[in-house]
């Protein structure tokens, strides 16, 4: 049985903390940075600890996608839901995000400047770049419903070989 987590919230920034927390917890189920074994709890369940690089990547990407849906697709006016389906498995997490707001053409998103110096420091247009770079796969199918599919794989455990 594939264990799936489904969350549906109104499409406004007010519900962002709920969605981010849910995704963070789900990421931790995969990265193992949350206590899998009830007999051996190792972290404070009240702190949203996403210091594990896997959790960092998943949460960073998801935050941008959620922001964009609330701001651009629903234009800060809500009026629809954001439906999130999370499939945590032992070595990856897949997050599908669905909204009924305005679609857009991802091909038109301007890339960040190649060379970054003081002058070219961007004050916007970083979200898609952050999400894409943090993930292993990111696809967007315009609708409505618009469908995002985010995938992040856990690197295979490093096995120490030989002496150090």
């Amino acid at each position, binding site marked *: 049985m594939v264990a799936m987590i489904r969350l549906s919230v109104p499409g406004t920034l007010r519900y962002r903390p709920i969605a981010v927390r849910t995704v963070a917890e789900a990421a931790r189920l995969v990265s193992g940075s949350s*206590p899998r074994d009830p*007999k*051996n*709890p*190792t972290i*404070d*369940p*009240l702190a949203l600890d996403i210091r594990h690089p896997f959790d960092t990547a998943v949460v960073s990407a998801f935050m941008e996608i959620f922001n964009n849906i609330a701001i651009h697709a629903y234009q800060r006016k809500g009026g629809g839901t954001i439906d999130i389906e999370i499939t945590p498995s032992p070595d990856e997490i897949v997050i599908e995000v669905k909204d009924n707001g305005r679609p857009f053409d991802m091909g038109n998103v301007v890339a960040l400047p190649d060379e970054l110096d003081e002058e070219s420091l961007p004050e916007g247009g970083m979200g898609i770049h952050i999400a894409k770079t943090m993930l292993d796969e990111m696809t967007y199918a315009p609708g409505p419903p618009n469908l995002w599919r985010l995938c992040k794989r856990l690197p295979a455990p490093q096995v120490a070989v030989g002496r150090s």
Partner: protein
Amino acid sequence: MAAPFDVQRTGDETKLMVRGSLDINSAPALADEIDKIIATKPAKVTVDLSALDLIDSSGVAALVKLYKGARGGGGAITITGARDQPLAIFKLLRMDKVFNL
């Protein structure tokens, strides 16, 4: 990343510090530790709950077990520092009187 509890033994006193959330997922490990504590028949047990943020009925059950076990072995037990949600739970269960919180 701190463990949700730790135990210090000094002479015949045992100090138990519980942190974060003591719930159905963390209480079983504490219950094991409590069995060990009770087995030593400590003269004095102090439980410090000042870093405990959240408790559920399984967490309460673990602490009751420690309370009964310590007293049953002839020892004294003091529970200190309960606050916020855990204190609300002890009050709701009218355990604040018994535990002298």
